[in-house]
């Protein structure tokens, strides 16, 4: 069955959200260079269509789990870029009071159950979220984002099997950007089309162009609907590409400049949607520019907010280990 939409309003929201991710990440890299953003930084640049196209089907009541490359998921799910940036700066106004940093941003208020520094760490969390939804018959859906590299870890297998046999309302979304850190996918598995692995669990699989937000939107809509109808999980593979290194500072000797510029030049998801909207007459070049500018402002505000925020005080060291302090 076909998925309706997206509406014009949704399209414009998605366009803005993709810019929000792009500019947040660019700013994060810049601030990392300045020594303000601390620790490891894995940007989502190039993959914006995936998070945005999928989360367009979710409300704050739905859940997502994320990865080490989580900023895009946070923003797609509606997290506040100010508190995100403050977290990257290690400030107490951050989502985790500065205790988490880039790899551990969570916003439970919008159903974002956390970035995760462990590859494949999200499978159990998402499957459990789906279980909670099913047990409570709440109609909520959980989306598990993971990379192609995570596919080779045991929790992929154990949890998708569990989600399948219990028909949990979960969508397992593989962002196949073709590399796990510095290793190309074809070097570490014979099966590069991850969607095809769905048959090993008896659930549907689908593969889409992850650089095209409209394709992602369509496929995600079907998978989310299926989950909401109580028919169980889908394994959705989005073929995508990260335009920057694995982390900020990665010298990228494992791939060619040409490969990178081919992808970023010809498959930029933001440009793709922008062009589409202009062709459809939904957006003028000026409007596009103004959306970008207002997001730019927002990000600048986030940096100011972060920079003006205090660091956590020493009392925060031992808080939050348990619900109440413990001997």
């Amino acid at each position, binding site marked *: 069955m076909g998925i309706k939409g997206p509406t014009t309003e949704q399209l414009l929201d998605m366009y803005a959200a993709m810019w929000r991710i792009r500019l947040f990440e660019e700013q994060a890299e810049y601030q990392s260079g300045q020594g303000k953003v601390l620790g490891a930084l894995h940007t989502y640049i190039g993959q914006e269509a995936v998070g945005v196209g999928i989360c367009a089907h979710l409300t704050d009541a739905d859940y997502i789990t994320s990865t080490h490359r989580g900023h895009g998921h946070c923003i797609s799910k509606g997290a506040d870029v100010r508190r995100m940036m403050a977290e990257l700066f290690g400030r107490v106004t951050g989502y985790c*009071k500065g205790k*988490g940093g880039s790899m*551990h941003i*969570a916003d439970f208020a919008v159903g974002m159950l956390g970035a995760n520094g462990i590859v494949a760490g999200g499978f159990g*969390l998402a499957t459990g979220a789906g*279980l909670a939804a099913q047990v409570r018959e709440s109609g909520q859906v959980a989306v598990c984002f993971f990379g192609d590299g995570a596919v080779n870890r045991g929790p992929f297998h154990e949890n998708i099997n569990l989600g399948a046999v219990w028909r949990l309302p979960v969508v397992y979304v593989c962002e196949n950007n073709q590399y796990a850190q510095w290793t190309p996918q074809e070097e570490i598995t014979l099966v590069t089309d991850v969607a095809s692995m769905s048959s090993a669990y008896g659930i549907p699989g689908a593969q889409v162009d992850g650089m095209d937000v409209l394709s992602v939107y369509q496929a995600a809509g079907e998978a989310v609907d299926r989950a909401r109808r109580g028919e169980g999980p889908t394994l959705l593979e989005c073929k995508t590409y990260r335009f920057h290194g694995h982390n900020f500072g990665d010298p990228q000797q494992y791939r060619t400049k040409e490969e990178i510029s081919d992808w970023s030049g010809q498959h930029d998801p933001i440009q793709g949607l922008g062009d589409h909207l202009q062709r459809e007459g939904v957006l003028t070049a000026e409007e596009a520019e103004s959306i970008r500018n207002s997001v730019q402002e927002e990000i600048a505000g986030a940096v100011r907010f972060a920079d003006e925020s205090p660091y956590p005080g020493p009392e925060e060291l031992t808080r939050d*280990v348990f619900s109440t302090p*413990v001997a």
Partner: protein
Amino acid sequence: MPSIPMNQAIREALHEEMARDSSIFVLGEDVIAHGGPYAVTRGIAEQFPDRIRQTPISEAAIVGTAVGAALCGLRPVAEIMYVDFITCAMDEVVNQMAKVRYMFGGQTDVPVILRLPSGSARLIAAQHSQSLEAWFMHVPGLQVAVPSTPRDAKGLMKSALRGRDPVMFIEYKRLYSVKGEVPDTEYVIPFGQADVKRQGEDITVVASGPMVGKALEAARILSAEGIELEVIDPRTLVPLDTDTIFSSVEKTNRAIITDEEVRRGGSSAELASRIAEECFDYLDAPVRRVAAADVPMPFSPVLEKLAVPSVEKLLAAARDLVA
């Protein structure tokens, strides 16, 4: 007070709390068939059919899913058939369950209980006889309960089921069938309160799990020799009731720590070093540790017997301390 075995005591806690709180949810391998190998979850499927599920052999998914469900409003109670198999889910325990509250700045509770049948029993050798309390103690964010009696097991499980933090609930397999009196009125046992199982003036014995019974046996024997052991069961290792332990040592000036864990790096090391550090001025003799041999659990009964700490070893340590 009725006398019931420990597996029944835990079962009663589960039943009573499930009736109170509809968010409690049980999962694990074979937990419906026969109520699991230890019959702890027997009857739950009949009474709460929608709140118990039998899983595949997928320990990582069991724990991961329990944690995810806990973040989203359930209170999962997962049985890991043998604590030895928690090795298959340590990322989920250590990097997820224990850390999410802290990493996320306190945004969420993590009310997961992992039920962990532990220790030696029935000659099942190295991969089915371990005691891993020390690992769990060493992971900030995990609470660790080690009941030694049916009464404690029920009361501690009830506390766990009402708490907001992850609990590693250590169930010594050898104790499942051991009976003890359990109040027939409602009670809970708070975490972090040690229980003085026997009062004595001469030596403080901090014993946990199956060593509590052995310590009490040793105490009876030594009492005839004029040596009075004070047997303290911490009941939870995290949180740890150091007040009770330290004040006992201040009274007796001697201490033995005993548990069924492998000695090197066991929880006895943490307790002994805390006592040695904080009761230094009161100690008349070195703190002794009576724990399992530093070997994988051997199969043969003659060797298993040597590996596991015994009443005899407790007697020897105690006599040595007062000599």
